[in-house]
């Protein structure tokens, strides 16, 4: 349901070969346009045929492999490399502006989703303009027709930054402006909104030309509105732009850049999260020890080498082998990690409740029938005690190996 509806007109327009009097269409572009190669049932069938037999026999399990290959190939980068043809939009009827976070000069996946949303709003006639603070790579392939690189603000000064963005946006006069509803993007959007005196539609989960939808009242209702000037887009709600790369033609910035005025912020410094000490509930990657682990020193070394946050099952905490605050589970900490690496944990129901929110689970356990093995995306039936030293060795080898190459 999240897939934007197909717009045959737009698709057709996107494959039109530019700069010719008679409309010509490049139909080869269509494949990449939908983001996936077309299936060839004949070829698939032929691929399944077991060789060297007079009577045709087919190994139907081969299909799985074929599909898997399709999925891995469908990375946006691969698609970009395959078709260098750049789409040019000369005279957009209107602009949809996007102000991405672009941490470190790179678009985040959330930024690309916002560009995808902007593309949906721009439709056939509109153009997508991106405003970046400082340099940014890959804005064209992500779907930007125009690009306004603004000067980055020195240090942490969100107010000045917002003033600059607001000035540039006022000069640009786009029909819609989209921000990512992230920590920084959400902050910037609100600052720009109050500066421009315009209402802001926040956290849109559906972005389409006929309306934006956001959750409200504690996700008990959703509100739909016709797209206004300012909106923020929720993460992981709208698909990225999947079409051919766009021009990203630089636009001159006509607005004068407000200078940094406020001296009220004395200093600002980033304190990166230390995986060893970050609260378990916030950790991104948790490696956890259970009853199957007896050598906790090695476990701690593995955790440090993986740059993971240490966790433990209740049994180890009860026994005093691991500190109580590392306990994962219903009575300990409920995780929101991206990955949970369970070493020697069978997975009691209360423990599984604690990892229910983890996106990926990797489990090492001797018991094939353990619940944790069932839950894991990668499950290894092996003694965790034996796997840990092997992991350590491999990590050390890798570090040394790459050290030699670069030296």
């Amino acid at each position: 349901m999240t897939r934007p509806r197909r717009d045959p007109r737009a698709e057709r327009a996107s494959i039109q070969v530019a700069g010719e009097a008679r409309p010509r269409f490049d139909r080869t572009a269509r494949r990449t346009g939908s983001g996936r190669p077309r299936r060839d049932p004949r070829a698939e069938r032929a691929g399944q045929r077991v060789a060297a037999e007079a009577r045709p026999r087919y190994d139907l399990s081969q299909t799985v492999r074929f599909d898997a290959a399709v999925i891995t190939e469908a990375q946006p980068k691969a698609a970009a490399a395959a078709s260098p043809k750049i789409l040019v939009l000369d005279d957009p009827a209107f602009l949809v502006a996007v102000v991405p976070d672009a941490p470190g000069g790179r678009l985040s996946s959330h930024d690309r989703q916002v560009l995808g949303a902007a593309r949906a709003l721009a439709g056939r006639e509109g153009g997508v303009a991106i405003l970046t603070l400082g340099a940014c790579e890959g804005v064209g392939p992500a779907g930007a027709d125009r690009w306004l690189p603004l000067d980055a603000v020195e240090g942490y000064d969100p107010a000045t930054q917002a003033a600059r963005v607001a000035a540039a946006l006022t000069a640009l006069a786009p029909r819609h402006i989209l921000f990512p509803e992230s920590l920084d993007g959400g902050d910037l959007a609100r600052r720009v909104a109050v500066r421009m005196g315009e209402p802001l539609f926040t956290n849109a989960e559906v972005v389409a030309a006929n309306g934006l939808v956001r959750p409200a009242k504690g996700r008990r209702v959703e509100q739909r509105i016709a797209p206004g000037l300012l909106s923020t887009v929720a993460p992981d709600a709208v698909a990225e732009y999947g079409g051919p790369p766009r021009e990203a033609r630089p636009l001159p910035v006509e607005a004068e850049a407000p200078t940094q005025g406020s001296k009220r912020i004395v200093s600002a410094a980033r304190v990166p999260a230390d995986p060893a000490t970050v609260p378990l509930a916030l950790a991104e990657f948790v490696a956890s020890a259970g009853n199957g682990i007896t050598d906790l020193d090695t476990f701690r070394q593995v955790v440090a080498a993986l740059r993971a946050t240490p966790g433990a099952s209740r049994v180890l905490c009860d026994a005093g082998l691991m500190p109580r605050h590392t306990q994962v589970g219903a009575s300990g900490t409920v995780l929101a990690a991206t990955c949970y690496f369970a070493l020697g944990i069978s997975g009691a129901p209360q423990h599984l409740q604690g990892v229910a929110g983890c996106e990926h689970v990797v489990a090492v356990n001797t018991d094939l029938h353990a619940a944790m093995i069932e839950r894991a995306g990668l499950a290894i039936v092996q003694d965790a005690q034996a796997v840990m030293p092997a992991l350590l060795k491999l990590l050390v080898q890798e570090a040394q190996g790459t050290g030699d190459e670069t030296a």
Partner: protein
Amino acid sequence: MTSLMPLTTVFPGLVWLMAALALVQGLRRAALWRVGAAAPVAWLDGLVKLPKRYLVDVHHVVARDPYASRMHAVVAGGLLAASILTALAILPPIAGFRPYWFVVALAFGVTAVGSLLVGARRYPAKQKRLSAGRFQILPFLLVAYAVGGTATALLLAFGIGGVFAPLALALAAAGGLGLAFEVRHGPMRHAAAGALHLVAHPRPGRFEGRPDTALQPLDLDAPRLGSEMPADFTWNRLLSYDACVSCGRCEIACPAFAAGQPLNPKRLIQDLVAGLSPAEPAYAGNPYPGGRPAQGERGALAGLIGPDARIHPDTLWSCTTCRACVEECPMMIEHVDAVVSLRRHQTLERGALPEKAVGPVTELRQSGDPGGRPLSARTDFAAGVDLPVMADRQQAEVLLWLGEGAYDLRYGRSLRALIRLLREAGVDFAVLGAEERDTGDLARRLGDEATFQALARENIATLQNYRFERIVTADPHALHALRNEYPAMGGRYTVIHHTAFLLELIRAGKLNPVRLPDLSVTYHDPCYLARYNGETEAPRAVLDAIGVSRSEMARSGKRAMCCGGGGGAPVSDIPGERRIPDIRMAQAAETGAGIVAVACPSCTAMLEGVTGRTSEIRDIAELLLQAVEAGR
């Protein structure tokens, strides 16, 4: 001495002097009770019933330790008899009657034997559960008084005077006056306070043969909520703590103590006693596990709870409110009431709930469920099962109260089994569905009386809309709240536990289970069913009806050990050396039974959570359903 006054007058005079000293010492102590709050006491009724309460109810508990029972009967009986007989001899006609002194000597002799029994418990080495301290000199005082008394009485009986008489009398005086002196701070306080406690007991219902276990509602408009200092307790509660004999039966029964959590009920009561007066001698029993020296101010107005006060908050939150200590206490002390009263102050006045309990209690207050789950999700366990809802029916014979267990994946299985049994038996029942809120049990045990009362009012208002004859529930905690605690809030219902209801259905022939003799089962009594409500027979009768081979754990029935799931202990989660459910499952494993039968969602969850257990956890409804289905 005899020349000034005859021995026949001096000896009874000694006893009168002892009585006077005891009275003075007792009154000095009693002055401290007067700082407590007022409490309604049915004095006359209590006095009339004192002998029965002592001889029946107290004896029932004391007799669980046959040695202690015999010891106490001999020494207390002898002491009382000998002292009263001697005191009566102040009347000259009696004093002059020589055979009378033989009887007195006999009484003193019995006391002497009893004194030796008392001493044997403490020397050469005292039993582990007993406290040392002043109790260690009790045998010597008793022996001195008894032997001195015997000798004096014999001298009088035989009419011998001379040098022996002053010696014997001096011995008796030393022992006797020592005993009387000890009424204020020493071992003999238990006799005075204990007797008065039986008269002015805060829960007289206990002696009427019905379980008087409901927590007393708190007036939320009172100037101060709960107990912060000794003066916040009612005077008869302060009196009851003085009755403590430091026998340590409670600490043996306490699951938190066994698990190495920082709670020792004896120490807790003794801290309440010691908190009352700076003059109280030092505690000499087993400490709170994880030992922490007593500190902080003492006195009627000194705070009792705090990291730097006499009682650490963790001690308070370790209690599972299982009442095992109350059940074992020969002095009829109500430990759980004390714990809840102290918790009430912590929660209501200071907002000092244990960190992990804040979430569940907040959700309970804001959304009517400790997990913050939608009330409509309570019936999700019954997806695909036809579950009649009261809102559609308006009336039903039986209202099935689902309780918090309904949200639990594992317990949903038990409830589905129960629902299928009700269908099988053709019972006209319905549930409240999304209208059912938590009974407030968790909030109340954790001291949040305000939330409990709010939830109780809402539930009572909901129940008022429907017509039903009885409430059946599989959750003993809900049963206790609805049956025993809602009446004080204005809701009176006939509430019956599912095991009792299933037994009824079997006996009425509506359920026809076959026998499953291959199953070996041991039944774990839920505290809130067995101890709080005295129901131990129905679950066992159901098990016997399906013919399983049933064995009993060493601790069962009203003396069963808690699973650790009550009183908010799982959400407070105070660390200990072991876990209570692990201990309980080890006890179950000793029976060799393959199945541990349970009858409570908390027990199910706690015992299921034991890692490396060898036996299955099955609700009685699940076992009965298996037997019924096997018969088809």
